[in-house]
């Protein structure tokens, strides 16, 4: 789960990281009022959960409250990479002397949190990594020991920070780590961390990704979820306990298991088709989950055929078959459905399906080829 910039910065601020004063506005009038309160030039920043907001024109300076209102009016409602801007952050504009990158990420190879800093802030760290990797200093934190002062100093001296900022930077780096761990983040970035006109360090932009597995114990953060992060369909799938991702193709798929679902997508591609989605019904799904999954798949107008691939184990084939029959009965199914079902209770499942006269196959590759042909209108 992603947090918005303003949410991320507020989390950092709770741990003592200095951030610009600012508030969120959902109307131009609110933006004006906030700018008046700040009493200095402000930056109006669209709050949408995608990168490249600046390039898209979603971040603008406003010197006066009038200008703030005007700029906010322009940015609110703007479309950035398919997302509508519904709120803007009105922040005191920083007089930026230099920009630093500071980020924490879970490094799965090292099995540790990696803290990275660079003197090249304000651009994406991937770009710095590609062009001047020597400008990124990284330390790895022992999971049981936690981040130590010496590691923060290694970063500070490593990026050649002027002596006067070492102590403040060290505190901020330790705070970032603390925020990362206590929020169960998988990524926490301050970019840029600036040295401002008052010669103080300040987190001008921030980003946090949360570990979805930890959301049950992070109630406050979980409550910050922006429903626009996922498409409405993805959100509905999550409510039903399904793992669903929108894709561009024409073959809807419903599979049990993430690896098998990805493999099924790969095979569709291999045989000349394109998957319309990733959909994992998980382990042990009952008829109701199957029904919900099919409802979601069939709503997509691009879907020309549906492929159901079930390898029974914890998931029982008869349960899946019941869900399919229910879906066919209750939904208006206008596209061909190919079922491939193997494993626990496969015979019972086939019997249930028999009435519905659905094409089925034993081998996965065969089923995929049938679905691809069906989608092309070649009949199944």
């Amino acid at each position, binding site marked *: 789960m992603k947090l918005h910039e303003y949410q991320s910065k507020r989390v950092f601020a709770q741990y003592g990281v200095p951030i610009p004063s600012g508030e969120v506005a959902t109307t131009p009038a609110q933006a004006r009022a906030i700018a008046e309160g700040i009493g200095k030039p402000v930056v109006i920043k669209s709050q949408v959960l995608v990168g490249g907001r600046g390039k898209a024109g979603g971040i603008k300076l406003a010197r006066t409250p009038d200008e703030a209102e005007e700029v906010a009016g322009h940015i609110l409602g703007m479309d950035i990479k398919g997302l509508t801007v519904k709120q803007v952050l009105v922040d005191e504009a920083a007089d930026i002397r230099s920009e630093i990158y500071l980020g924490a990420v*879970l490094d*799965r*190879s090292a*099995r*540790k*949190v990696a803290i990275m800093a660079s003197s090249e802030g304000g651009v994406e760290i*991937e770009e710095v*990594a590609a062009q001047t990797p020597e400008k990124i200093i990284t330390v790895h934190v*022992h*999971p*049981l020991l936690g981040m130590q002062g010496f590691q923060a100093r290694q970063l500070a001296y490593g990026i050649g920070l002027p002596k006067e900022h070492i102590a403040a930077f060290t505190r901020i780096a330790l705070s970032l780590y603390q925020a990362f*761990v206590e929020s*169960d983040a*998988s*990524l926490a970035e301050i970019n840029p961390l600036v040295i401002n006109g008052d010669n103080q360090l300040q987190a001008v932009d921030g980003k946090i990704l949360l*570990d*979805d*597995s*930890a959301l*049950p*114990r992070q109630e406050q953060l979980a409550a910050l979820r922006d429903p626009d992060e996922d498409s409405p369909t993805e959100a509905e799938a999550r409510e039903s306990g399904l*793992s669903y*991702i929108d*894709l561009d193709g024409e073959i809807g798929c419903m*599979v*049990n*298991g*993430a*690896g*098998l*679902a*990805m*493999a099924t*997508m*790969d*095979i*569709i*591609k*291999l045989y000349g088709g394109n*998957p319309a989605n*990733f959909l*994992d019904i*998980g*382990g042990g799904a009952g008829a109701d989950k199957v029904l919900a999954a099919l409802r979601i798949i069939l709503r997509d107008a691009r879907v020309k055929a549906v492929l159901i691939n079930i*390898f*029974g*184990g*914890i998931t029982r084939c008869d349960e899946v078959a019941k869900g399919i029959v229910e879906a066919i009965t209750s939904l208006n199914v206008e596209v061909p459905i190919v079922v491939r079902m*193997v*494993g*626990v209770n496969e015979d019972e499942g086939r019997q249930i399906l028999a009435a519905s006269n659905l094409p089925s196959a034993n*081998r*996965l*590759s065969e089923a995929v080829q049938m679905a691809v042909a069906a989608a092309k209108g070649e009949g199944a």
Partner: protein
Amino acid sequence: MSILVDNETRLLVQGITGSQGAFHAQQMIQYGTNVVAGAVPGRGGQWAVGNTPVFDTVHEAVATTDANASIIFVPAAFAVDALLEAADAGVALIVCITENIPALDMARARAFIDSTDSLLIGPNCPGLISPGSAKVGIMAGHIHTPGNVGIVSRSGTLTYEVIYALTERGIGQSTAVGIGGDPIKGLNFLDVLQMFERDAGTEQVVLIGEIGGADEQVAADFIRTEMSKPVTAFIAGQTAPPGKRMGHAGAIISGGEGTAAEKIEALQDAGVAIARHPEEIADLAAKNV
């Protein structure tokens, strides 16, 4: 022969009185696994799944029954405590089925387990099976058949698919290990490949990977430089869009790391035969028999 589990395995089931734990304990016993005890706080002194004694603590279970392996069916909020308990009690092999354990908890747990003599498989994994001798997991036992192909996989049902295809072609398995899809876990590809390389009962290996992380690349390095037995691989997620989480916490591509293409290239460079779809693995493996 096999790796990790066999007829010597004396299995403890943590969470044996829960619905998952009870069901799979039953299934494992039916398969022939030597299930010696269960551990559930507050249920000590009871019997579960027929005649399996239940203990309040793992230490007590181990002291009484000499359990040398444990399988964990405990909700995510308590699973880390359960696996630390097993490691602290000296259980040699710990298999954690539980999914949705926070990654930072696993980082801490793994750091602790590394300071003990225990091995961990999982979490978020189907477990492992040495066909014909011991099933320590949730896979359907009947699709397996004894033989000499070692299997190591990050995925669950995808592995069943491959096993099914192998068994259909009459190719048996020495041990099939599902290492799980989480970003931070116990044994990884490298560890299991090393065991298969040493195991006299394994003549070739099938590796089933997926997008995310770099474990397959690390495995490729080992295969190229150290491994004498033939390896066949399939990598799932070739068509997955970057930045989206596909069910497994581990299957996320960030910053260009861990694409299927990178992994396939590394494995091909190491001389691994790459299957285009799961069933093709059986075809490729058949050539090595």
